[in-house]
């Protein structure tokens, strides 16, 4: 995944702003470069769980499409745990077409990793930050 530095910074800032609640949202790309984040509501408002609101999902995906972009990933934060797919993340990763990005605030420096999940098999992706 190629992601603009400012977008990576934005999702880290989003995670920090709402910690200890998990945050979530979509990342969209233009010509293979993730160039915008769409913060969404975590309907669970929980410290260890997130769920997107389908109504907001549909509206955001239409907005992304109308802007000529493509959905690249869904991101969420792990305020207290590492940037890896948890058992629950894997179990609920139904969409094989997108990436799952996790922002961890567990260490002093935030960590952002990206994963693809197909039929329960997790593959970590290289995250290339473009300045």
């Amino acid at each position, binding site marked *: 995944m190629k992601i603009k530095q400012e977008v990576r910074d934005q999702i880290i800032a989003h995670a920090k702003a709402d910690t200890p609640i998990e945050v*979530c949202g979509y990342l969209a790309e233009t010509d293979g470069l993730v160039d915008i984040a769409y913060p969404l509501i975590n309907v669970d408002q929980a410290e260890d769980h997130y769920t*997107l609101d389908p109504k907001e999902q549909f509206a955001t995906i*239409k907005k992304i499409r109308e802007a000529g972009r493509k959905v690249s990933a869904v991101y969420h934060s792990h305020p207290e745990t590492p940037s890896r797919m948890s058992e629950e993340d894997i179990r609920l990763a139904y*969409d094989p077409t997108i990436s799952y990005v996790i922002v961890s605030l567990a260490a002093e420096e935030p960590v952002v990793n990206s994963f693809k999940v197909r039929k329960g098999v997790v593959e970590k992706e290289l995250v290339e930050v473009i300045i």
Partner: protein
Amino acid sequence: MEIKVNGEAQVVEESNITVTNLLKVKDVEMPDMVSVQLNGEFVDRENYDTQIVKDQDEVEFLYFMGGGAQ
């Protein structure tokens, strides 16, 4: 028939297809975990087997998105 699926015009061989069968055609592996809008209105999951998609309809579907730290 011609319909729009997730914003893209597509030709589906079967006319008057159910939502369930359309999701099968689109290779959706977990239809129970998908939300569907037909012409801008949510379709109740319990109606996926009976709701008919017709020529020129616009269908949007997306997967449930959630997870957790544990």
